[in-house]
Structures are given as C-alpha cells and as structure tokens.
C-alpha cells in the first residue's frame, strides 16, 4: 500500500532549480534508497517528503492526505509523531546527555519523564551505547553520537524514518554497524525508511533504489548523462 507519495514536486532556491517535477511512491514498511550525484536534489526531496520544506508546486501525500499545504505547526507535529529524521551529523543537543537527547522527542510528545527515560535507555541499548547514557555529545566519538542520534530518531517508533547520509561521517565498519542495526529494527517494527545516499554500497541496504538526476527521477537507471559518441544526448 502506498504510504507516501510525491507527485510533480518542484522546488527552487531562488534562481536555482533543485527539483523539477519528482514523482515517487513509497509503500508501507518499504526501505527505499534515493541516490544520484551531488547536487541532484536528494536532500531537497527528503526535506519536501518529510514536510520540512514546502514544494513550490506539486503534491506530497501521506496516507492519502496532502501535507504540502499544511501549516508549519501541523507539519511540525507530524514530524514529532509519525516521522523520524536523521542527518549525517546526528545533531544532538550539546547541553543534554545521550539519554536526555533520546528522551526529548518523547517528552515533547507528552510522555512522562520516567517513562521517557526508560524508553531512551532501551533504545540506547539497542544501538550498543547504553553505557553512554549520562555522557554529553562533546565527549563521544562521531560513531557513538550517530548511534545516539539514530536511537533518538527511532524512539517515537515513527511510521517513516527519513535519513540523509546517516553514515556519511563514519568509517566503513562503524557505518555498517549503525546501518545494519537501523535496517533490522526498521524491518522488525515495519518502519518505512527513505535513505538518501550517494554510495552504492549504502543504497544496497534498501529494498529498492530510486535514482535522481538533475532534480527528477531517472528511470534509465544510470543517474548520469550518457556521454556517447555522436554528441547525442
């Protein structure tokens, strides 16, 4: 069943076009990677799908409802409840400990302190960093921070996880461990994942790969201008 859909999504930053009419459907529980060369619009698409950015034209539909026209408050609530977002650099709150960071989305959603802390510790444990519960991000390695950020993105048990180069800053083995755990948990919980990456090796964790080129889905499957003899393009 289609859970999330983009239809003709267009977005420009001033004079710079970023998306030129993207069509995409993501099924419930599906893990989809979005790949393509730098600047092709991957992050912009992710932001539009997650309701962080509003498209200039086109529609974004979530469970049959158009969310692109929703107010910032409504979209922000959607992001706190149904969606989880994870970026390349975890973006943990520097003043808070790991457990406080992970508990934060639950507290914002109205969960009680004690319950939020228990859930946070359980999620930190799933990512193998529960011993860092009372440590602040400044005293953690990049890999440890990213494990905490992943726990934070999943603690609300979102319907969809949007991840933008989540392992881009990690070494191969650490990145792989984080991703393996993320994908395992997503499958267990039937969480839909939209995974933005420019690396084929990372895209291979998904069930399906969507390739963007110059702001649109590239159905040729190459994601490139094909530079062949005769000047034909």
């Amino acid at each position: 069943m289609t859970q999330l859909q983009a239809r003709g999504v267009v977005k420009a930053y001033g004079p710079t076009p970023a998306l030129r009419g993207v069509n995409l459907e993501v099924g419930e529980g599906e893990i989809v990677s979005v790949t393509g060369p730098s600047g092709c619009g991957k992050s912009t698409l992710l932001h539009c799908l997650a309701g962080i950015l509003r498209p200039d034209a086109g529609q974004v539909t979530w469970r049959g409802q158009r969310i692109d026209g929703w107010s910032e408050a409504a979209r922000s609530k959607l992001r706190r409840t149904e969606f989880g977002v994870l970026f390349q650099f975890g973006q943990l709150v520097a003043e808070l400990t790991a457990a406080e960071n992970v508990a934060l989305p639950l507290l914002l959603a109205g969960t009680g302190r004690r319950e939020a802390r228990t859930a946070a510790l359980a999620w930190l444990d799933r990512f193998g960093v529960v011993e860092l519960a009372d440590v602040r991000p400044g005293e953690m390695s990049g890999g440890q921070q990213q494990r905490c950020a992943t726990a934070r993105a999943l603690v609300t048990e979102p319907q969809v996880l949007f991840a933008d180069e989540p392992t881009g800053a990690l070494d191969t083995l650490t990145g792989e461990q984080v991703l393996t755990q993320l994908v395992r948990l997503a499958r267990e919980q039937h969480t839909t994942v939209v995974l933005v990456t420019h690396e084929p090796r990372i895209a291979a964790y998904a069930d399906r790969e969507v390739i963007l080129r110059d702001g649109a889905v590239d159905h040729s499957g190459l994601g490139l201008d094909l530079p062949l003899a005769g000047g034909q393009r």
Partner: protein
Amino acid sequence: MARVSTSHVLLGLLAAGSRHGYELKRAHDERLPRARPLAFGQVYATLGRLRRDGLVAPAGQEREGGPDRTAYTLTGEGRAALDRWLAEVEPPMPYVSSTLFAKVVVALLVADVDRARDYLVAQRRAHADRLRELTAAKTAPAATVDDVVAADFAIAHLDADLRWLHTTLDRVADWHREVHP
C-alpha cells in the same frame, strides 16, 4: 585475477590438524564460502602432488581403500612452504584484466549509442542487484563471520566497479562537453 593456489589453501587448512580429503573439501567450502567450491578430484590430485613433494604425509597408519580413506598431516617442509607463501606480498594489480573494464571502454568507443546505453544500464543494474543480495546475506541475523568476511570481499569489489563505472561516465561526459560544446 590470478588463480588461487589450491595447494597453499589446503596446506593452510592442514595447519589446524590432520584431515581426510573430504574434510578438507568441506573446510575449504566453509571457510571460503563465496569461492568456487572445490571438486573432490581436485582435492585428491592436489594432495597427491603435495605428498610427492613431501609437504604432506599420511597421518598414522595408512588404511586399505585408496586416497579417500587416508588422513593427511602437514610436514615440517609443508609448514615452511606455507609460511613462505604467507610472507610473499601479492603484486597489487599488475594488469587491469577485467572483462567489465574492457567492455565499458569498448562500449564507449562504439558509435551505436542505444546499444552501449542498454549495456551500461543492464550492467549497472546487475551490479546493484548483486550488491543488494550480498548485503542482505551478510546482514541476516544467522550470518557467520565466514559469511560476512566473504560477502565483504565481494561487496568491496562490486562497489569499486560501480564507482569506477560512474566516475568514468562522468569523466567522459565532461570531456565530451569540452570537445563538442
């Protein structure tokens, strides 16, 4: 890619203790799960040669009934040969001898745009599909360390192929734009 030296792999497996031919075959296929499986005939032929050269010897009493009843053990000379092999540095790709490399270069030279495009699209897809299969195999909860190590090797090489394919196409596109603005 250079052929794997079956004799040295068998010597390595015998370093853990004496084994029968069929046990060696099983150990080989387990420890190198994505390598081409060894044929029994190949195992016995290799053991025969190693024995002739004094690198392995029958363990204990030799029984009636041919090579399949015999357990072999590593000799001192065999151990030395194994150590020499392990100490020898492999030449890092003296030649680029991959069919993929040759085919992509030829496809880019050939003036038939559609055919070349079809080939590149199909090749990229086949690589990506295989990458996904291997990734699923190694992230399966039941995967053993041997499975993961073997899948990692294949993944790293496919990933390198794909990166090279993309970089090459980008590079040729840039070059083409300069030549035919």
